């Protein structure tokens, strides 16, 4: 985890956003070289911890992963409406899944945080539903493969995450808040619209605007 990026993502005023943006850019440049002084872990390291678990069933690596992700996954589950005891149970289930699935982790597809986010998300949905969440199966014989990407458009999952972090911090507060709502309050667009007393079309267009800005930012960096 890189604290600066975390702080930056929560920085919402114009001035602090501008400051955060410049420091984050500087920070992003050295992100892969060393652990942050706050004891957090850099993405590279998190990726290799998952790989160590996958390849060697390395329990020490798992402990370090747990230390980093368990508190975040638990917080996510609480934000999504679980009480603390449920959140603890589900978080443990999710971390078990991290162990079980670690062999299939591919850092070129998704970074550690993204991969664990999807595991926590699915664990939570499965706990609420009769059926397991419908998921894309990468080994589906019906799968239509993507065209090979051109060399200059290839971007690593890690670079993408770094760029996104910067882009989120640069979003206007309202758009950033809607994105948070969409991811952390388990609300569909219609429910967000009802809660915010906004027309559905407005919520959709603001979210579209936010996603458009994020995409533009990421593309500009390429």
């Amino acid at each position: 985890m890189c604290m600066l990026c975390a702080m930056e993502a929560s920085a919402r005023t114009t001035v602090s956003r501008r400051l955060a943006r410049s420091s984050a850019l500087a920070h992003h440049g050295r992100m892969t070289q060393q652990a942050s002084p706050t004891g957090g872990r850099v993405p590279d390291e998190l990726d290799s911890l998952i790989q160590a678990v996958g390849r060697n069933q390395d329990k020490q690596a798992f402990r370090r992963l747990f230390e980093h992700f368990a508190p975040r996954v638990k917080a996510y589950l609480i934000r999504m409406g679980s009480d603390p005891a449920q959140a603890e149970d589900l978080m443990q289930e999710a971390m078990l899944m991290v162990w079980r699935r670690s062999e299939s982790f591919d850092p070129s597809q998704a970074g550690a945080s993204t991969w664990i986010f999807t595991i926590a998300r699915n664990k939570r949905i499965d706990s609420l539903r009769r059926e397991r969440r419908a998921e894309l199966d990468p080994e589906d014989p019906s799968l239509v493969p993507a065209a090979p990407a051109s060399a200059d458009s290839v971007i690593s999952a890690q670079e993408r995450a770094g760029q996104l972090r910067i882009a989120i911090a640069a979003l206007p507060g309202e758009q950033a808040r809607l994105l948070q709502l969409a991811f952390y309050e388990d609300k569909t667009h219609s429910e967000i619209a009802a809660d915010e007393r906004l027309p559905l079309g407005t919520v959709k267009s603001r979210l579209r605007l936010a996603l458009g800005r994020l995409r533009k930012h990421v593309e500009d960096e390429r």
Partner: protein
Amino acid sequence: MTRHHPDQAMLLDYASGAASEAESLLVATHLTYCPRCRSEVDELECLGGTLLDSIEPSLPAPSSCDEVLDRLGREPRPTSRPVPPQVLPQFQGLPRPIQRLLAASDRVPAWRRVMAGLDVLDLPARPPEGAGSMVRLMRLQPGVAVPQHTHRGEEFTLVLAGGFSDDTGHYQVGDIASCDGSISHRPAADLGEPCVSLVVTTGPVRLASPIGRLASLFVRV
């Protein structure tokens, strides 16, 4: 190459986990056919991961990690690859998200005839809220058209085999056609092979013509 995609709001609901079972099924199936939307969902999930990084942490119970390691010690070494679902031979060409749903069902799903040339198969996914909502497969024989109708809610039709046309366009494998109450349409299957599609509706179908309305007394569309 698919040309008709789910809207971005639906992809976002899928990535964040807010989508209903039926919508998740629709999106997961579309993703099987559509590399473009796959990469869009990858990006949205990356956004979820980035937000997870910046969340205010909540401390686990002190013995939490030991408990998890203890449970790991007691279980057999897991296989990391997803096991292909076991389905009847007639469902084997379907995309796996649909196959998994069929495999999880405790009854044997069967096609039923609605009218000449049109069969449906109800899927055990929990449909979205609203009376008359449903999740089903629809099979139209080549050249057959569904009577002109409209919808009280929304309808999403994802083509799995063959193709069809209606007043809004032509749809092929992987394409999603979406319809609401403002559209009255008469989908007709392409000539050649039967058109099989996944249909998710959030409200009952209303047949448009007097004859259609009369027919609706006899056929459960």
